[in-house]
């Protein structure tokens, strides 16, 4: 669990962009997080309410867009979304895979008011 440093980083990035745009208040923060990133949404929101207090981001709502894991089988070239605890190809049982999606971990945009 490392939601606190993650949340502090989200706040730092949000405030930096809002300040640069001359905005007074951040109302919404839009995050894109892959399924493979081990982050718990509720924990981030919990820490957010604490770390954003008395900043222009206080009260802002966090929006999480989760990206499901998607793998490419390098043996039969099929793209698939694996079941939990499964990674191998459901079509050919191949074990050579490449991650196509699910590792995303970025702040996409913020909604601000001046």
């Amino acid at each position, binding site marked *: *669990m*490392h939601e606190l*440093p*993650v949340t502090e*980083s*989200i706040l*730092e*990035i*949000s405030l930096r*962009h*809002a300040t640069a*745009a001359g*905005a007074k208040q951040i*109302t919404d923060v839009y*995050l894109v997080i892959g399924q*493979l*990133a*081990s982050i718990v949404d509720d924990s981030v929101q919990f820490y957010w309410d604490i770390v954003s207090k008395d900043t222009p981001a206080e009260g802002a709502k966090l929006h999480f867009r989760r990206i499901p894991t998607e793998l490419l089988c390098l043996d039969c070239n099929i793209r698939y979304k694996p079941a939990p*605890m499964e*990674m*191998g190809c459901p079509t050919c049982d191949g*074990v*050579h*895979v490449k*991650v196509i999606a699910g590792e995303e*971990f*970025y*702040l*996409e*945009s*913020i*909604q*601000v*008011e*001046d």
Partner: protein
Amino acid sequence: MSARLPVVEKILGANERLAAINRARLDAAGVYSLNFMASPGAGKTSLIEHTVKRLAGQLNIAVIDGDIATSIDADRAAAAGATAVQINTGGECHLDAAMLQDALLQMDLSNIHLLIVENVGNLVCPASFPLGTHHSVLIASTPEGDDKPYKYPGMYRGVDALIINKIDLLPYISFEMDYFRQGVELLNPGLVTLSLSCRTGEGLDAWLDWVKARVSAARNPSPES
């Protein structure tokens, strides 16, 4: 007036930038570095002790130990003959690049050939925070169970070498090596994997050879390597 500002910035980008600074500092000092990650009790500190003792006279080794509290691990590394610095994270479950930066400032890196950073015992969080070390080594141990690659894919996917420690216990526990290795192969095809026992010493020579070869390659880069 309300407006939507595009940001598109990696949430842990600041850590990655500091990691790059750490790498540059290590490169400038001619130090090859490893990040040891494992669950608590897998044998990180034991492997460090054996590595430091067995390579004494061949390599000057420094150790940075990350723990939530105490300096037990740094004391063990120092007793084995290493230059050691302890980082107490005060509750954080992993080391990050800023902590390593602080620790590097406390060390005289001249004459050091190899730096081993012992991360906090944890199979989840350390994988998300690169430190700037040259390679990451995961130390698995057989009593943890053969399902760990499947349960901690983020950790197994991100490492450059895997140690399977405590192989002397294999006759006494249920650990299906084939099942374990299949999970590893799925997540990290072709991963360098070395089996050993810190207790009996079996397999340690192959590990020490790997370390020496990596240090040598880092200090004397050739066009072929």
